[in-house]
């Protein structure tokens, strides 16, 4: 607050002079100021971002010349038809949703006791230490962490060494483990914030009324932190849907939507088909967001 006080004193001294016509104009025209503030960010987000999503939808309707591989800009539903009638793509889509849901459930199961301990049991200092400890791995390179799991799960790696040769190997299970590891902080932090908002008085009231701890957890704690878990799940679900790196590193031959899309765009150079395929995770996340909106999760993000 020291800065503000000093600033205010300087200001009273400087106030009477120099009332430029431009600043008077801005001071009176609230609407104009709002319009100026909104113009640049909205221009960027609507034109660059929503516009891009529009171009993506449009390009899903284009085709490629089978001989030259160039994009042909004539409207055709062929790609969308091919994607949504192909049993292969549906199987990949279901596998991807399964992986995303598995990651979300695993992260929620791990995050609940950890966030509860951090918020309600740990001392103030331990709590701060733990928040920073959970936050820091988020900033350690994402790629490095996926790579670390490749090392951990290698045939002669540490997991195999600890469990005497038993490892899940590279594949679907390894992908789910790695993704659950990568996105765990995204679940712990909102759930922790949810517990912080839960008044201790409620827990005490519950036990004063004779509830045993498990009953309090089931009837008071869980219903109240559920929106926070739902908020965290938006991240774990969305991030898992869009990931092709971890699958590429620890997934072996596993195909998920994102790496199929990546293959179509980068390897096969079929941009229209990649765009058509990208509508699959888009529909999945929109459905998920609509489902989560009913839980009040979006206010907790």
């Amino acid at each position, binding site marked *: 607050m020291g800065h*503000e006080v000093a*600033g*205010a004193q300087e*200001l009273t001294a*400087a*106030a*009477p002079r120099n009332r430029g016509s431009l600043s008077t104009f801005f001071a009176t025209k609230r609407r104009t100021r709002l319009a100026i*503030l*909104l113009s*640049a*960010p*909205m221009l960027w*987000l609507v034109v660059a*971002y929503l516009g*891009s*999503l529009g*171009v*993506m939808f449009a*390009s899903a309707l284009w085709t490629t010349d089978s001989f030259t591989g160039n994009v042909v800009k004539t409207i055709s539903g062929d790609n969308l038809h091919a994607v949504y009638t192909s049993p292969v793509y549906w199987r990949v889509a279901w596998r991807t949703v399964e992986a995303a849901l598995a990651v979300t459930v695993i992260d929620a199961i*791990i995050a609940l006791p*950890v966030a509860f*301990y951090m918020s*309600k*049991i740990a001392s103030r200092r331990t709590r*701060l230490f733990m928040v*920073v400890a959970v936050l820091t*791995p*988020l*900033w*350690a*390179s*994402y*790629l*490095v*962490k996926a*790579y*670390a799991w490749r*090392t951990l799960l*290698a045939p002669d*790696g540490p997991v195999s*060494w600890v469990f005497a040769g038993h490892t899940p190997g590279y594949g679907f299970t390894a992908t789910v483990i790695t993704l659950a590891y990568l996105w765990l902080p*995204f679940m712990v*932090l909102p759930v922790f*914030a949810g517990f912080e908002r839960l008044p201790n008085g409620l*827990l*005490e009231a519950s036990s004063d009324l004779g509830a045993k*701890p498990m009953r309090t957890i089931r009837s008071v704690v869980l219903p109240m932190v559920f929106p926070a878990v739902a908020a965290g799940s*938006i991240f774990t679900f*969305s991030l898992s849907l*869009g*990931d*092709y790196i971890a699958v590429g590193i620890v997934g072996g031959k596993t195909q998920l939507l*994102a790496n199929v*899309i990546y293959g179509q*765009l980068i390897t096969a150079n079929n*941009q229209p088909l*990649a765009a058509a395929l*990208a509508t699959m*995770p*888009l529909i999945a996340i929109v459905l998920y967001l609509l489902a989560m909106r009913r839980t009040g999760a979006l206010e907790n993000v």
Partner: protein
Amino acid sequence: MRLPAGLRWTLRVITWLVLLFLYAPLAIVVMNSFNKSRTFAFPPTGVTLKWWHAASHSSGALDALWTSVKAGLGATAIAIVLGTMAAFAVQRYNFFGKNTVSFLVILPIALPGIITGIALNATFRTVFDPLGIGFGLTTVIIGHATFCIVIVYNNIQARLRRTGSSLVEASSDLGATGWQTFRFVTFPMIRTALVAGALLAFGLSFDEIVVTTFTSSPDVQTLPLWIFANLFRPNQAPIVDVVAAVLIVLAVVPVWLSQRLGDDPSSGRI
């Protein structure tokens, strides 16, 4: 809450085990960067600084590092301007469509990265390329800025909500011009939140690979792209380990700084 000692201890053990689970893979990478053998043999066969020396002379890694820094600075600069403007608009004004604006800001990070990547890729191909803006550093910066806006926005918005508008009103009542109020009241209030937001935005950009893959050209390689390209080359694996170890250690800096400057460590990333 009064819990039986057994339950308290169980929760404590679970929490510390989970923290161990979070750090064990990172520890393995750091350890591996000193491992004598070329492949990731476990347990390590011996200790060496050879790979650290090799990495400090790896021109590929150093070029990629420089590209990442440029991309991060560019994206952060755009995100600071746009994120701050949007935060002021949403926090200080009431208008129709306010919820839509905050939803739009969050959208680029709420949607899976592959969708943002494909969408931007489609636009750069069909709109930018004919205009003479090819894939390269510019397109990477545009892509990164799009999802970095929300980080600055969240930090500034939280600060504006916490500080309220009474000081700004007092300043106008005392006769300050709009510029003076900004210079002497508003800016000092949001300064640390700006720095925290900028650091986190830079960190996010520095680490991004999914959108980067779809917005970059073959000759513009950010550090994550370089790591990904060299991950499966046996000759480069030990150098990748060193770069990875450096990145892990550097990760502490933005968290520590933004935690000291920001309002709440858990608000660092949405």
